[in-house]
């Protein structure tokens, strides 16, 4: 049973003792506190969000170093920074790291932190499962990267790891095994998290928060969770088949035995194209919050925004074969997928137009967050347009596997996804930490990153059209590739500088925070519920669960129209915001078991690769932890059911009876 926001607030302040006195198995039930151990057992969606975000930024640096190695290798003809073999591993791990270990968990950070706040809930539906998602994700991420040390190198088959390149014959190191098992572990994490967040969105909205009053960011994140829910099992199947082929001699991708290598491509891209929207929709959601706030206008065409997001979610399933136009899938398939690829540009275009219409006539305020948001729209549009050119199959045939493709998807994923999520960081930083990021350094970060980004990936369009292949470790002199490759390398160094500025900004603004006025609950004059509570957010989120009367409810709490239709302020933030001073709010208890379960999974992975006994130990650890988890009493709402008054004695007895759910 999970704790809902409707759970009565039955524990008195300071009365957490009875939770600590329940030794079960090897762990004493932890209490929520402030030390580092509390981060290991936390089930608070906000802390889990921060854990996701911080780990994602760490892997951003890892993937960034890999990117810089690629660019150094390609800076000049006949580069010798990396051997061809290591180059293969580096670009593969760069792609895998950036997609699965950076953007997805960073989006998960926003989803975890802000979905409950935006729908007026005290936590997600399953707080311990939420912790489990994070720990499984982290253990999978670490597992994947240990292949550098114990696996004889990283995977070397490209992030989409086409058969038959991924077979033992062409990739004899354990890198691909780590890829196949590591992505399965990461997939479990995302699946658990998607179930959790879908239930949260559907089932835990504050009174009055109908679906069509949900903030657009929550909407986009909800659609993302559905895409994850349905896309992940497909790649899981593909990864299982690959794993069985490599480890247990199955025949799924052995053409000599009559197998079809295209099976992998289909399964991968049926996952892989929705994955593109899994990456971009959270950024769309962020932009849809930032632009209205700094335009001081409601989002133009809310319904269109929501339904175009849903349309993207559906149509994203019907375009996968445009990744496979050169694989010989036949003229009818090519024509069908060309058309569907053109069509999917329509709902995306609707979004772009609505953002522009939101800004049109607004009182624009170009904070760093707003600059990132506007840049997201602009850069994504460039990437989207080059994407439409891929729907023209004859042209795509020419462009496949060239740097034109690399340019395209970096404009979409970096220009759309990463810039969008940076907009979100500058926007919500004061909400999360209680102090602003420095705007001056933020401006430097923004401009250096924007210039560096365009300098890196803009020239790749030209290189690609000139015929430079992707995934080659070097190129000969005299093809005309020299200048633009050097330009791209300089650009990539600028991006690195921008990231360093951002890190410096994080450090400096934390250091400066005590000398600056605190941001207060609502520094940007925001529109959604998270701005109605203090910054940083108190552990229990809301003192009282808000009653929602309209879209942008918080805005309408502050402003109303007078008789002439002018917007007038009716309440100050101080009057309207919650104080965060409620005590005795009943919150889910922390638990170590999610971490214990997560530790077992990579052991199974190592065991499958090296020694099945180890897999057995991992499996036993996981199963034992799952059972201990199931038997660990949730601070059960059923126990609270009978005790509307704060009767500790009685509550304790009811608890000891063990409503074990």
């Amino acid at each position: 049973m999970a704790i809902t926001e409707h759970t009565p607030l039955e524990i008195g302040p300071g009365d957490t003792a009875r939770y600590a006195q329940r030794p079960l198995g090897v762990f004493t039930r932890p209490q929520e506190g402030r030390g580092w151990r509390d981060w290991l057992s936390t089930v608070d969606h906000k802390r889990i969000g921060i854990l996701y975000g911080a780990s994602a930024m760490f892997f951003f640096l890892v993937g960034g170093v890999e990117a810089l190695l690629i660019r150094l290798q390609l800076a000049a003809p006949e580069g010798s920074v990396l051997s061809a073999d290591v180059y293969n591993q580096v670009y593969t791990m760069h792609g895998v790291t950036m997609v699965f270990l950076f953007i997805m968990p960073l989006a998960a950070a926003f989803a975890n932190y802000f979905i409950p706040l935006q729908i007026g809930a005290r936590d997600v539906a399953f707080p311990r499962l939420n912790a489990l998602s994070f720990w499984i994700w982290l253990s999978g991420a670490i597992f994947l990267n240990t292949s550098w040390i114990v696996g004889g190198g990283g995977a070397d088959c490209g992030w989409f790891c086409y058969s038959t390149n991924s077979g033992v014959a062409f990739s004899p190191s354990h890198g691909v095994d780590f890829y196949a098992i590591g992505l399965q572990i990461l997939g479990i994490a995302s699946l658990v998290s998607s179930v959790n967040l879908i239930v949260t969105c559907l089932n835990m909205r504050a009174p009055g928060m109908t679906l069509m009053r949900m903030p657009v960011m929550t909407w986009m994140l909800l659609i993302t969770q559905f895409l994850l829910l349905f896309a992940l099992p497909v790649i899981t199947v593909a990864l299982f088949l690959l794993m069985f082929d490599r480890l247990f001699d199955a025949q799924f991708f052995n053409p000599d035995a009559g197998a079809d290598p295209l099976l992998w491509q289909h399964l991968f891209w049926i996952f892989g194209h929705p994955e593109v929207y899994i990456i971009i929709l959270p950024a769309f959601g962020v932009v849809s919050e930032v632009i209205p706030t700094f335009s001081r206008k409601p989002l133009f065409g809310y319904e269109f925004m929501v339904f175009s997001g849903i349309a993207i979610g559906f149509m994203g399933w019907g375009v996968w074969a445009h990744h496979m136009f050169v694989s010989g899938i036949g003229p009818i398939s090519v024509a069908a997928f060309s058309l569907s690829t053109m069509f999917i540009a329509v709902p995306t275009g609707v979004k772009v137009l609505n953002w522009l219409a939101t800004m049109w006539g607004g009182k624009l305020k170009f904070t760093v967050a707003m600059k990132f948001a506007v840049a997201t729209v602009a850069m994504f549009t460039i990437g989207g347009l080059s994407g439409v050119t891929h729907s023209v199959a004859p042209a795509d045939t020419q462009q496949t596997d060239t740097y034109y493709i690399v340019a395209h998807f970096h404009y979409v994923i970096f220009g759309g996804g990463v810039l969008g999520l940076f907009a979100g960081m500058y926007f919500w930083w004061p909400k999360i930490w209680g102090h602003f990021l420095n705007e001056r350094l933020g401006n430097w970060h923004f401009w250096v990153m924007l210039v560096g980004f365009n300098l890196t990936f803009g020239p790749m369009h030209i290189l690609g059209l000139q015929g430079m292949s992707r995934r080659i470790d070097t190129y000969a002199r005299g093809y005309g590739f020299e200048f633009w490759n050097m330009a791209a390398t300089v650009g990539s160094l600028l991006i690195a500088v921008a990231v360093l500025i951002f890190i410096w900004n994080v450090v400096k603004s934390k250091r400066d925070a005590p000398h600056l006025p605190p941001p207060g609950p609502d520094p940007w004059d925001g529109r959604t519920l998270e701005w109605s509570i203090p910054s940083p957010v108190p552990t229990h989120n809301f003192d009282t669960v808000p009653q929602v009367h309209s879209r942008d409810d918080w805005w309408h709490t502050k402003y109303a129209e007078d008789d002439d239709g002018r917007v007038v302020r009716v309440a100050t933030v101080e009057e309207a915001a919650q104080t965060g001073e409620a005590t005795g709010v009943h919150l889910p208890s922390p638990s170590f078991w999610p971490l214990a379960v997560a530790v077992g999974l990579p052991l199974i992975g190592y065991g499958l690769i090296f020694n099945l006994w180890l897999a057995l130990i991992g499996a036993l650890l996981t199963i034992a932890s799952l059972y201990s988890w199931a038997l660990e009493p949730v601070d059960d709402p059923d126990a609270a059911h009978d005790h509307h008054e704060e009767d500790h004695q009685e509550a304790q007895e009811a608890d000891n009876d063990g409503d074990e759910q």
Partner: protein
Amino acid sequence: MSAEAVVADHGHDEHATTTGLSHTKLAMWVFLGSECLLFGGLISTYLLYKTRGNNRTLPTDVFDIPFTSVSSFVLLMSSLTMVLALSAVSRGEEEAGRTWLLATALLGGVFIGGQVYEFTSFVREGVAFTTNPASSAFFTLTGFHGVHVSLGIVMLMSLFVASVKGKLTQRNSETVEIVGLYWHFVDIVWIFIFTVIYLIPAD
């Protein structure tokens, strides 16, 4: 804002959710949606590969339809006993509930036993996991289903033990319902597998 006031606000409907379904039940439905795609991928793989024999024996050559029909029937009957278990628990008849839970688990166990027998006899007849793409796909698909049934049996036995300990009462009969959702889903998947894989001939 004092704690008492907040209790007064929401004390009367602490189990209310937006949809009216409990979180756990909704989560199970959502999860089963995901499972559809998992089995969809595996079934598609088998359909693509079912004639890829590498000049060796195909699974379709060694199918024993009468035998598998019987074990399919056993699995379907376990859905009936599952319903009876839920009905008994939700009426507060814990003794009967335990009986039907055990019966469901036993029927599932018989099905798994049949699958083990089937697999071993296939291997004896020359269709092993690594024989050809068709056999790899067959064993992976039915093996996955078997693992799902086995996990279901573990859940049923956990419920049984909980019931013996007196912890499965009318009040939390929803737990039985949620395990039942999973169990019925696994059965329905088998109906698909049996029809598409076993009953429709290879060419």
